[in-house]
């Protein structure tokens, strides 16, 4: 405004350069937060360990290239074309386990999903990754229970499903948790609880340190819900 310059297109007095920059930076922040459906920038309480992050990101990349090999018409950058509604915004979510109550051979893990994403997307796929260290000889039976928040009362859970895994050797094993996470996305607090139960003589089913790169995680793929359209004739 000081320079008396006017916008050539609409004639409004041009902003001073500093004020214009601040206005554009504020616009960029508003625009990104609005598109991510976030009320404000997230304050990240506790970052997952670097090892766990790298392991999970490598897994997602490997999963994507496997999917590329499996699905014809794969997009160039490795994204799987959405099954329904091309052009809908897609999300890939890596959720790292929060340790819950545990005993010598049983452990609970919690996976939280943010309300912003849960409230505006639908789950296409969700996989739980668990690492088993070397234990005894031969295949070992492990029970994995998926628990969900009980609508009847806070901090109580109900059993959603129970799976017995035969762990043949040390390494990663996966479990499809798509149905459990999908039904969570309608809840007030979208939190998946996983209970692991191993044979008594195994010891804890979890790595000793949360910073371990073999810490359990869930990889979920979600897609923005198609906007609800009302057709009137």
């Amino acid at each position: 405004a000081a320079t008396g310059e006017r916008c050539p297109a609409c004639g409004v007095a041009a902003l001073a350069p500093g004020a214009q920059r601040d206005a554009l930076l504020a616009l960029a922040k508003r625009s990104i937060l609005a598109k991510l459906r976030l009320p404000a920038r997230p304050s990240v309480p506790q970052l997952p360990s670097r090892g766990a992050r790298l392991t999970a990101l490598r897994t997602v990349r490997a999963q994507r290239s496997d999917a590329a090999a499996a699905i014809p018409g794969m997009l160039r950058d490795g994204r799987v074309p959405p099954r329904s509604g091309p052009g809908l915004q897609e999300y890939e979510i890596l959720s790292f386990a929060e340790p819950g109550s545990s005993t010598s051979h049983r452990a609970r893990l919690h996976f939280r999903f943010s309300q912003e994403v849960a409230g505006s997307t639908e789950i296409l796929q969700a996989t739980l990754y668990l690492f088993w260290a070397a234990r005894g000889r031969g295949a070992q039976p492990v029970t994995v229970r998926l628990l969900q928040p009980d609508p009847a009362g806070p901090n109580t859970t109900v059993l959603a499903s129970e799976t017995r895994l035969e762990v043949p050797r040390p390494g990663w094993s996966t479990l499809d948790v798509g149905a459990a996470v999908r039904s969570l996305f309608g809840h007030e607090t979208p939190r998946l609880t996983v209970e692991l139960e191993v044979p008594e003589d195994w010891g804890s089913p979890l790595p000793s340190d949360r910073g371990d790169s073999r810490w359990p995680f869930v990889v979920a793929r979600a897609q923005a819900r198609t906007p609800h359209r009302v057709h009137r004739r």
Partner: protein
Amino acid sequence: GVDCGADSRMCCRQEFFVDFKEIGWEDWIIQPEGYHMNYCAGLCPLHMAGIPGLAASFHTAVLNRIKAASAAAAVDSCCVPTQRRPLSLLYYDRDSNIVKTDIPDMIVDSCGCT
């Protein structure tokens, strides 16, 4: 499309890079380091209407001169994005999950007159 120069007055694309470190967002946005929030600015007199950017063939230029001479030349058209692409973000949400998403139509690649 055309990128704006120091004294461009006609419709062009103005580059504007937002460095996430400069706005203190580098702790929750893992990738990329910033956002190209380019925008379109400049004049679109009617004889420029309908061509993507300023690059016009000789035939279009002659046609424009004829249009410019017409009485309706006083009405302008608008300088708008003609090509846009998604902004791919990898970020932490408030539960420390890592989320990757492609936000469609966030980066303007070229501008032109409606």
